[in-house]
């Protein structure tokens, strides 16, 4: 099944939205390419949902321009935009059957009932719910309700499809399956999709690009790999995955690499435009390698806490450069609490960040 329309881009130019005194979105700009899945990621209250609602037309911006395709839709109401949304609560109409829910957008647009229902049935099959049409939403499981919500949004062949934390009401296993299905559907239909979540793993898994938001502004924008491996700032480093941030100093720049000093130890990594002087270093927990063998004059520490988590161990290590959070996949030889360890840094997962 293909969609008749081509997917559109979404562009924000200096958009600001305030609710009274509270600024929810402050002067943000970004472009979403047609046919891509972009995630708005951030903690609650960062403005990601407001951004999504600005795209939908459920909020009207105070300043700036919103463009869908080449059309300026800044002042256009939700009804008049070619955008559909899957809500966090699914927002299925409880008094209508599943098929009536899916066909709603068509019947509102004055399509004949029989034709609308036939099309709705097609879309139910698309999401794997053929034959469920006569049930009430309350008679479906959470995952099935989710699919109905997706089918209802897809039926109008929107230029842009929006998801507002669609998986937050599902249990962990189902969440993984649904997000794969959403991804497949998005790719096979080539839809421009904007996806809001506060779950960083979900964002990494589904996105072509991620826009990380913090406190009403964009903290970083990039591919999942960019965001995880080269976070621009402390907030992103901390929010996406775990990171221990330590103070370090760049002592010299050698080509692409920077030689740094952390406490008494030296290390080198890509400088990414940072210059000689004190810097913050974000270290992923899996990039800290611990060993009990007494090393040379390297960095040493004491394991203050060791936690067994089934497929990996988590350690808290007190060291000269601060308290380190470490993840170690070698569960067969756990390091007991109180042990002295020597600490090494891996070549990946260690990066400079701005304050």
């Amino acid at each position, binding site marked *: 099944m293909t969609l008749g329309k081509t997917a559109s881009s979404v562009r924000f130019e200096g958009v600001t939205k305030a609710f009274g005194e509270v600024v929810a979105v402050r002067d943000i700009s970004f472009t979403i390419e047609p046919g891509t899945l972009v995630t708005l990621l951030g903690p609650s209250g960062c403005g990601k949902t407001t951004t999504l609602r600005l795209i939908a037309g459920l909020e009207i911006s105070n300043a700036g321009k919103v463009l869908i395709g080449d059309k300026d839709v800044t002042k256009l109401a939700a009804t008049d935009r070619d955008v*559909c949304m899957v809500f966090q609560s699914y927002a299925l109409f409880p008094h209508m059957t599943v098929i009536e829910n899916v066909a709603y*957008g068509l019947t509102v647009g004055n399509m004949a009932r029989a034709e609308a229902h036939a099309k709705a049935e097609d879309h139910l099959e698309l999401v794997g719910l053929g034959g469920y049409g006569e049930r009430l939403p309350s008679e479906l499981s959470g995952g099935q309700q989710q699919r109905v919500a997706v089918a209802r949004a897809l039926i109008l062949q929107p230029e842009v499809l929006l998801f507002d934390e669609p998986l937050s009401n599902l249990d962990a296993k189902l969440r993984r399956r649904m997000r794969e299905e959403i991804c497949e559907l998005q790719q096979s239909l080539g839809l421009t999709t904007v996806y809001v979540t506060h779950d960083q793993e979900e964002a990494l898994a589904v996105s072509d690009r991620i826009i990380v938001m913090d406190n009403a502004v964009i903290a970083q924008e990039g591919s999942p790999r960019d965001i995880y491996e080269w976070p621009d700032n402390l907030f992103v480093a901390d929010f996406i995955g775990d990171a221990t941030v330590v103070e370090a100093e760049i002592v010299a720049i050698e080509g692409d690499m920077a030689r740094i000093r952390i406490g008494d130890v030296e290390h080198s990594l890509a400088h990414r435009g940072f210059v000689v002087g004190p810097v913050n270093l974000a270290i992923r927990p899996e990039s800290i390698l611990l060993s009990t063998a007494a090393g040379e004059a390297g960095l040493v520490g004491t394991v203050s806490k060791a936690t067994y988590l089934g497929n990996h161990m988590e350690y808290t290590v007190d060291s000269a450069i601060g308290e380190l959070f470490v993840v170690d996949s070698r569960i067969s030889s756990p390091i007991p609490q109180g042990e002295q360890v020597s600490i090494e840094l891996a070549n990946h997962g260690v990066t400079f960040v701005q304050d």
Partner: protein
Amino acid sequence: MNRTVFLWLAIGGIGYAILPWYAIEDGFWSLYWFSGYPGDIDFAPGILQALGHDRPWLLPVGLAMAAPLAIVGRDPTDPWYATVLIAAGSFGLVYTLAQGFAIGLNGWEFGFLESLYGDLGDRQFGMGYGAVFVLSAFLFFLTQGAAARGAIKGDVFVVGSIGLVIALVAVFIFFPVGYILLSAFQDNDANFAPALFFEKLFAQDIWGLGCLTANVNCGVAWNSLFMAILVGVSTTVMGLAFALIVTRTGFRAKKLLRVLTVLPIVTPPFVVGLAVILLFGRSGAVSTFLEWGFDIEPTRWIYGLPGIWFAQTLAFTPIAFLVLIGVVEGISPSMEEASLTLRANDWRTFSAISLPLMRPGLANAFLLGFIESLADFGNPMVLGGDYDVLSIGIFFAIVGAQNDQGRAAVLALVLLAFTLSAFYAQRRWLGRKSYTTITGKGDSGLHARLPARVRAFSYAAVLPWAALTVVIYLMIMFGGFVKTWGLDHSFTLNHYAEAFSVTTGEYGLVWSGAAWNSFWTTLQISAISAPLTAGIGLITAYILVRQTFLGKDAFEFGTMLSFAIPGTVIGVGYILAFNVPPIEITGTGVILVICFIFRNMPVGVRAGIASMSQIDKSLDEASLTLGARSFTTLRRVVAPLLRPAIVAALVYSFVRAMTAISAVIFLVSANYDMATAYILGRVENSDFGLAIAYSSVLILIMLGAIFLIQFAVGKRRQSKRSAQQFSIEGSTA
């Protein structure tokens, strides 16, 4: 060009060029005006009035009406589109109203206009359908212009609804209340007389405190206030006892208690007073028994404060109960359990935890009882004796021999000041504090056991009340079947025959009973006003819950205000304001319908707000993003989910319209007599038999209606229960 603009252009055009501009004396629907139409000056449409009958001041109305033709073919985003509509609408509204108020039955209404332009030599009557159509068209031109300017995201329907509700509230609540204020400052020849106002306001018979020192009556204001406080306290205590027994004890007959609390709602208020007379009056059942058994001489002690207090406590306790039961049930059991685990005994838990948590409910119950008592007209009328209260004073100032409109207005202002203060105190006090103990998550646990002394007190309060209520209703049911209560208790059907006899005459059935006329009118007026009340209430609730706009707080206050305005005040306001052009509707059925709509609207609004807050907002938004307009969303998503609330509002406004008396008593006329007014008239003539017979028929009809509808709604809820739960879950997720 927008279709809606065309529609209102057409409606306005019809109003100006086709329909009679002025109100037709015998009613529009009599259609007798066809014979003189369109030439006759009384029946001519606006355009002929202006051109053919020397009423040139109606000409600008037509010009404003035609102005939107200039934007035919323009797009709503065109700046001219909004400008022309706003200009035509606002000018048309202001001008049409201004000419209506300026030129009345005797030509110029205001002296300065007469001195400015000289004697007019012409006059005009109340506005008719033509003027109403034209004014509506202007109103919606204005709202469409505002929407085109971007108000409420350019939503024509919502802006129009807001405009409509504001206009209606302004005309039918603020205008009459304002008119009272105006009348208070006038003498009875409509001259400005502030000195007279102060003289009347501070009169001895309003504020006198003679009863404290000498054996004379206190002022009516003190009487009313004292009575209202007594009733507020007693109904709150009784209501609390009820709520505690229903929620915290294993009392067997809880269901029966619940039914008893519904009864007073379907009972015309003064019927309780009537029953109290039949029990405790001079020839009442109890008095007669006491005389026979104990040689206690029957007296008229029941007439006056004791009787009113007694009857009002009986009548208004259910209101306190309904308020308090929600609060008592709402207290989280874990609070009480926490107290018990901290070694507090059950009395301490009740007095230190449960009771303070009920404080907002208690305050609310007290204030409602206070307001209801102040506003009550029927019971003081029947039982008052020498104990004068404000509502009665107002009534007799208007209909009595003195016919002193100024005094009625002053008394109405005093009464309004009392109720508004109570209303304000209620909102202010309850608005500040949060006593919310329900978290939305299932809160398991058991409520603490009721302390023995509280339980004993509750039973002691409730059981006599329940017994008395049963006795009273039995008496109302059977009182209609005895010849003369207290004197001749032989069985008779005469009262029913007199009220409801049907004979076969020459042309088939003849409704010859004395009650039929008012009975059919009551049914008709109630049936017309109920859906209108529910509709306006629902739309207002939708605007309040789902839309944000500048001045929303004022809007909410305005729509809720009529809740705090006693019926007597509304009644006085209506006859003062709507007895003269431009809105001349006293003596018609329309004024009764309008009165009921705006008296009962706040209840519809509250019911709508309560249930709409339960519906997840994302349902509306989902509908909007799927391309539905706000009207479609309201019709296809919101309204179906609100069905129980709509039905409740329908039933409630129907029942209230059947039982209302305080405002109605001013507004009934020979053609449109209402059941309650008719019955009260019979009571005043001591014709108790027919009054009781009629009342019992009314009560049975309303009970039947309520149970029928409860049954229907209950059924539907069963089948859709899972759906309902789903929508609520959606909102907490």
